[in-house]
């Protein structure tokens, strides 16, 4: 007899997935014309048929959003708007388990993460921004900051509901209405959120959700009836959007890619550092724009840290995302899996040394074992390109200056990690790093009060806190 963890599957009974979904426009679900499947990446089971929005649907959604903006939402007092947001936050908390299960089914992330991170944080974002709605004049943008109008919001598949919350909550608090497009492969929680809007009796058209692929996104970006574009996704698409809106008056915020350095100094608290490294790269299968995907180890502790890291990785539980004991779930899509496989192969080809713990991957679905590459240099593709998967590139450094030079030697600048027990060095390093979020002796922490966003090619603007709110308000001198 031995001590084994149970397959402790979360019950699926809490959700009811419809065979087919339409769009949420003007407060109602409207049937789509064309459909595409959304798949559980852990099993390849088709969960539902999702409508593909074309020009007519996007037009209708923008029209509904404009009407709601002009007739209702921009006229409502901040106090009343805030109450709707509080209602939404509460209903999300009430239906948290349902959201968590749905998120895990559609996305492949472990239920522990959707239950303990994604959904609670999403509700917290609404709760936080609800309180801003009647306090906009104190946001540092002058005495009467104004909303921008209709916001077009395009969100990724890695944190579907959380990214929705990051976008919708500040937009609504500031008095904008929205047309939101969830990612092609993870639309289900956004569609459940539409039901929450109905239960909260949110005025029709304040939130419109259209589903689709990149072509739907392009229709939103290029729509003349939209005043603001908020996008989270790849740097490549971010640049396309930046070019597309250049001739227009649209304001834009972009939350793009990253290749974060996670720097371990020789005085780091070693066991917590190892946890932080694991959390930094294997949280959410590494599908995290701010993932600590480049581990920079001070040479005099590199061997010890790697030894402990490998031992710790042996304990990572990869498998059924619905199992409450699972640490690493499924890769979100076949397409993403192929990209990870291709970049890992580049690591092999360029001479880096690949290591993974022994783990049995399920036969069906999309899976990639937690992997580290040692012997990586700055010139390797796996040290420069965003892999967006559970693959860690390990580099070493000799002095703090060298660590910073290596960390900053990238066009990205979203996040970075520092592990040291020396306060002055931590503060020095946090000053030197060219990144928008610095985690010192922690990693991958998020909070609605805490601005998040990148330097350089990692994006424009911040989300969260007063800084994030200002991206949905007029009131500054520049255009």
């Amino acid at each position: 007899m031995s001590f084994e963890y149970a397959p402790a599957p979360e019950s699926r009974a809490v959700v009811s997935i419809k065979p087919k979904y339409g769009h949420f426009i003007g407060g109602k679900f409207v049937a789509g014309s064309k459909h595409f499947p959304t798949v559980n990446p852990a099993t390849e089971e088709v969960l539902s048929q999702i409508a593909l929005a074309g020009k007519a649907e996007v037009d209708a959604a923008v029209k509904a959003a404009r009407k709601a903006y002009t007739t209702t939402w921009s006229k409502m007092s901040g106090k009343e708007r805030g109450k709707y947001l509080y209602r939404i936050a509460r209903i999300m908390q009430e239906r948290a388990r349902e959201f968590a299960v749905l998120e895990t089914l559609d996305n492949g992330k472990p239920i522990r993460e959707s239950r303990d991170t994604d959904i609670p944080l999403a509700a917290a974002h609404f709760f936080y921004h609800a309180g801003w709605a009647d306090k906009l004049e104190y946001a540092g943008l002058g005495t009467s900051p104004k909303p921008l109008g209709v916001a077009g919001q395009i969100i990724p598949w890695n944190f579907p509901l959380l990214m929705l919350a990051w976008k919708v909550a500040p937009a609504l608090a500031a008095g904008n209405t929205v047309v939101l497009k969830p990612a092609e492969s993870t639309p289900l929680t956004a569609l459940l959120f539409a039901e929450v809007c109905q239960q909260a009796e949110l005025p029709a058209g304040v939130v419109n959700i259209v589903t689709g692929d990149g072509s739907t996104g392009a229709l939103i970006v290029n729509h003349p009836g939209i005043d603001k574009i908020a996008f989270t996704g790849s740097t490549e698409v971010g640049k396309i959007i930046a070019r597309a809106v250049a001739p227009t008056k649209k304001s834009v915020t972009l939350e793009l890619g990253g290749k974060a350095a996670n720097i371990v100094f020789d005085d780091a608290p070693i066991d917590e550092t190892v946890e932080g490294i694991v959390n930094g790269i294997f949280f959410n299968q590494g599908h995290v724009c701010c993932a600590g995907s480049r581990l920079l180890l001070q040479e005099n502790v590199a061997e010890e840290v790697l030894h402990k890291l490998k031992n710790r990785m042996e304990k990572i539980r990869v498998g059924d995302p619905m199992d409450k004991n699972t640490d690493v779930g499924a890769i979100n899509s076949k397409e993403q899996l192929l990209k990870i496989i291709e970049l890992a192969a580049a690591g092999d080809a360029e001479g880096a040394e690949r290591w993974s713990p022994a783990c049995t991957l399920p036969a069906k679905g999309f899976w990639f074992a937690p992997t580290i590459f040692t012997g990586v240099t700055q010139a390797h593709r796996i040290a420069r390109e965003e892999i967006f998967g559970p693959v860690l590139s390990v580099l070493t450094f000799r002095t703090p200056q060298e660590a910073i030079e290596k960390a900053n030697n990238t066009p990205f600048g979203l996040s970075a990690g520092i592990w040291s027990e020396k306060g002055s060095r931590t503060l020095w390093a946090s000053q030197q790093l060219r990144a928008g979020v610095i985690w010192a002796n922690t990693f991958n922490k998020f909070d609605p009060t805490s601005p998040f966003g990148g330097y350089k090619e990692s994006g424009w603007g911040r989300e969260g806190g007063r800084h994030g709110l200002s991206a949905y308000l007029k009131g500054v001198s520049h255009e």
Partner: protein
Amino acid sequence: MSNRIDVKKTYKLYINGAFPRTESGRTYEVKSAKGAFIANPCLASRKDLRDAVVAARAAHAGWNKATAYNRGQILYRIAEMLEGRRAQFVDEIIQVTGVTKVKAEKEVTDSVDRLVWYAGWTDKIASLAGSTNPVAGPFYNFTIPESMGVVAAIAPETQSLLGFIDSVAPIITSGNTVVILASTKAPLSAMTFAEVLATSDLPHGVINILTGKKEEIAPWMASHMDIDALDISGLPAKLHAETKVAGAENLKRIHSFKSADPGRIIAFMEAKTVWHPIGL
């Protein structure tokens, strides 16, 4: 007295604290409001821009690291130096633009005062644009604004001194360095201002000044991958779209402004959020 021949100034570029001629060897003619020849300033080329960006990048680390107090003192020193040369600027403005003496004096006065205003912002902007964030967990979390790096700017065509100062001052207040293209028709104030800078304790390379044509230099500014941000207040509106398109290649932060306010400083700063556990 009357038959003394003036010693005329050769207007050159201002790069890395020196006054080089354009590498291209080109100049263009600047005339007075009445059409008389005044000077042959440099018609800067993309290679001059390249050199200026190298200087600005090299200067950034030091200027960014300087204390806010120190940057404030240097900005104030620039104001002092400008104040001492008021007459020269008034003369040049009148000469080039033909405005009244009262108007020219007002512009110079406003320019000095504006520099003093920005000097006072260096050590205050962080308390406006920063925050401590009460996250739901045992973490100390704060957001501080910091400079972006190298910012390029195109100064407005009119108000060639005040507009110029409104462009460069907010950029350098926070610790950025700048490469600026002066007013094409009225570049003299900017180039004389370089002489003020050269005697103001401002580290070399923090402000680099080019003269020339907007249509020629702006696209190179927009596409330059070592420029982090761009102030296009002085660029004709019809060129904004293509500039933004080119700037998207490295996602430059591109802004234009209508007035002086602290938002102008903040627009060229990045917010950095730092998390650290709180524990025993």
